[in-house]
């Protein structure tokens, strides 16, 4: 008789199982600037023979490269940061 209460409690516990519920963080957003494609490199006007015109286009293209390389760095940073946040949430 003295075991009745614990036995009933355990029977109740084992009869009610937790339903499968998935609680997971939503897919993280990406800053819009990172979604833009890198532009094509600029070309020099074929009617010119001035070195200064060539230099202008070349330096423009260097700038495009650095802006585009920045996006690549951003993607790496974004991935590493969001991965840490996700892992902390589901741990």
């Amino acid at each position, binding site marked *: 008789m003295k075991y009745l209460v614990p036995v009933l409690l355990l029977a109740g*516990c084992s009869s009610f199982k937790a339903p499968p519920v998935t609680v997971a*963080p939503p897919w993280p957003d990406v*800053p819009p600037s990172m979604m833009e494609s890198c532009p094509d490199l600029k070309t020099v006007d074929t009617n010119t023979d*001035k070195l200064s015109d*060539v230099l202008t286009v070349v330096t423009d293209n260097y700038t495009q490269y650095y802006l585009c390389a920045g996006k690549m760095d951003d993607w790496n940073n974004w991935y590493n940061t969001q991965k840490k946040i996700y892992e902390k949430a589901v741990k």
Partner: protein
Amino acid sequence: MFEFIIQHILAHLPVWFWPAVAGAGLLLYFVAGVVAHFPVLKLYKWPVKIVGALVFVLGIFMFGGAGVTAIWQAQVDAAQAKVDAAVVASKSANDKLAQVRKQKNQVIVKRQVVIQERIVKDAAKIDATCKVAPEAIKDLNDAAANPETKK
């Protein structure tokens, strides 16, 4: 479906409900003993005892089930709190990333403007001693074109 409804009901009952049911059953069981002392009610002694015992058993059984449901609900709430914190942290990280990128891009563009101004200033000197051959321009333009998108 039935199990889900039961779980839902269990989750919304107050904590004291099932112990109270068990207590009521126990009380009923002992009241049956008192009832036996009255000749008119003596007839109901065993039915009341049985009902009291059944109510007691049900109360204890459901108290165990409610305990499991409460633990499960606490785990779900804790997980949801973590997810909510992650959403906030994710947005904050994105804002910070966009802000840092904006500053870095400003530095890059500012530097380009300075270089362009220098080219404009020195254009006369640069162009005085050198004329670029059309072949050089063609080679440079071909190198700048992306071969993947070139038709």
